[in-house]
């Protein structure tokens, strides 16, 4: 969909990327300052770069000839929102919308639809200067969509928001990516956002692409190279794919099935899909040798340790335990050869690891507090 072969210099950073990004939602993941924002700027045409950029059959840049920003039809949601303070929320939304109408673009997104989808009706007459952080982020995303983008660039759309605001916005993002099928590049350094929204992940470091592929596999490889902790990339963890088998409104508990084992998580609403992607932070997973009783932690998944590695740097004194979950599901074709989706990672202290005499092959129970699993989007 998007073919890049570009080189750009900003300050100390040299961005050099040559890749093909597939259709759908792709995450661009990496530590602060690795060039994620610079890459988005180059794709949008906001900074000069060398090389070529192609979007489907359109050439956006080829040697010296560059298509100007306003003709690329990219929707860009900036980290700092950048709503126009001299215009009302409605006028902000209409800014790109009327220009798209004038250019007779294919108006796939109706203004009223976007307003209702993002619940913006009560805010329309307000000034952007009076909006809360979560509200202005919503307006900012909606404004980008109103301009009928062919490609959506989201630069850390949830950064700087507290947990409540994030859970307020995540469903909107999930809905865009699910329903509107606009190709999207999602920049983040937080891996549970990526796990929820993006099928494909690109990992960057020092202005270069270091890994790319299916999100679950990429996150798995990141852990193995221990690059995640070294590069200060949010929390390490694992991505699981589970089936929804029950929902109890009274206790707000969703019951999931994972290779024949059940897992409970908290969610205010019934999940919209039968399949859920979950991100489990490694620091939220504890290990027990026996199935515990009389404990507030409700999830105990049986598994076998496959590997233990010491963590270094800021996480000195910890070990990462790689666990393969037991699967009693005989229909599962992957039975006996666990895939990435049946693997979880736990960070425990090196001392605890010694006391429990853990090692490869030890059968254990992985304990996970329901409350610590981020409520999945949509």
């Amino acid at each position, binding site marked *: 969909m998007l073919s890049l072969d570009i080189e750009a210099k900003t300050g100390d950073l040299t961005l050099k990327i040559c890749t093909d990004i597939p259709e759908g939602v792709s995450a661009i993941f990496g530590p602060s300052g690795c060039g994620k924002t610079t890459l988005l700027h180059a794709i949008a045409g906001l900074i000069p770069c060398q090389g070529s950029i192609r979007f489907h059959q359109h050439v956006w840049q080829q040697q010296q000839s560059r298509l100007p920003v*306003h003709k690329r039809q990219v929707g860009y949601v*900036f980290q700092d929102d*950048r709503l126009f303070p001299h215009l009302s929320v409605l006028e902000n939304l209409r*800014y*790109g919308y009327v*220009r798209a109408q004038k250019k007779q673009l294919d108006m796939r997104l109706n203004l009223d639809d976007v307003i209702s989808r993002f619940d913006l009706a009560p805010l329309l*007459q307000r000034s952007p200067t*009076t909006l809360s952080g979560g509200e202005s982020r919503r307006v900012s995303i909606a404004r*980008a969509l109103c*301009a009928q983008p062919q490609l959506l660039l989201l630069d850390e759309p949830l950064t700087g928001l507290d947990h409540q605001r994030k859970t307020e916005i995540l469903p909107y993002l999930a809905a865009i990516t699910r329903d509107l099928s606009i190709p999207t590049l999602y920049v983040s350094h937080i891996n549970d956002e990526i796990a929820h929204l993006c099928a494909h992940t690109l990992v960057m470091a020092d202005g270069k692409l270091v890994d790319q592929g299916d999100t679950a596999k990429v996150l798995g490889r990141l852990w193995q190279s221990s690059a995640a902790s070294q590069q200060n990339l949010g929390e390490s963890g694992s991505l699981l794919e589970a089936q929804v088998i029950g929902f109890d409104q009274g206790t707000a508990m969703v019951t999931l099935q994972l290779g024949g084992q059940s897992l409970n998580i908290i969610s205010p609403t019934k999940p919209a899909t039968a399949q859920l992607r979950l991100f489990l932070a490694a620091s939220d997973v504890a290990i027990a040798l026996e199935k515990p009783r009389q404990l507030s932690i409700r999830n105990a998944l049986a598994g076998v340790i496959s590997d233990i590695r010491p963590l270094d740097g800021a996480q000195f004194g910890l070990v990462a335990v790689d666990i393969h979950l037991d699967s009693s599901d005989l229909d599962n074709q992957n039975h006996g050869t666990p895939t990435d989706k049946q693997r979880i990672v736990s960070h425990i202290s090196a001392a605890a690891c010694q006391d429990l005499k853990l090692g490869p092959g030890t059968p254990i129970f992985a304990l996970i507090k329901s409350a610590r699993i981020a409520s999945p989007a949509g």
Partner: protein
Amino acid sequence: MTELSAIWLTVQLAAITTVTLIMVATPLAWWLAHTQHPLRPLVEATTAMPLVMPPTVLGFYLLLLFSPNSGLGGSWLALTGSTLAFSFTGLVLASLIYSLPFMVQPLTATFAQLGRKPLETAATLGASPWEAWRTTILPLARSGYLTAAVLTFAHTVGEFGIVLMVGGNIAGETRLISIAIYESVETLNYREAHILSAGLVAFSFLVLVAVYQFNRQAALSIAPKGTR
């Protein structure tokens, strides 16, 4: 009433200077606010020169430049049949030069503070560069423009040294308020000097009050209706 003609002439000069400078200084201030060009400090210093030079020095050199013996003054005379020195046109040219920093500096500061972000954002929303500038920078720089225009207008009204050197004292042509006040004092006509001086003081004060009031409202009206 010689005072009335002096007042009218002064207002005309200040208005023409202000309007012309808004158009001349906008691209210059935009360039200064955003360029990385090595010549920038040189251009910046040149535009700021009228601030630090004694007005009589500037006036002296402008007088030489405007005289029919110089290249500029000579070709002006050949083209129009009138001299630049001791004419209203000469005064306008001189005012444009000595009031330039009063327009350029507030605008440069405003543009630098706004940065390029509004333009980038507008471009991603489909606006062409000029359209983006007109619909974001121009309205956002409104109070900067007002400050610059008022400073320029007031400074042009109050200038004395340069207009005396370049324009002299020809009633209805180059005799401005400040010249008229000086002449009244010289001839011990204190009554007329008082009227003009007190008038200028009151005018300046009222203009400043109006500007500050407008700026306050502009700051409030950045927030559209229904939010105040």
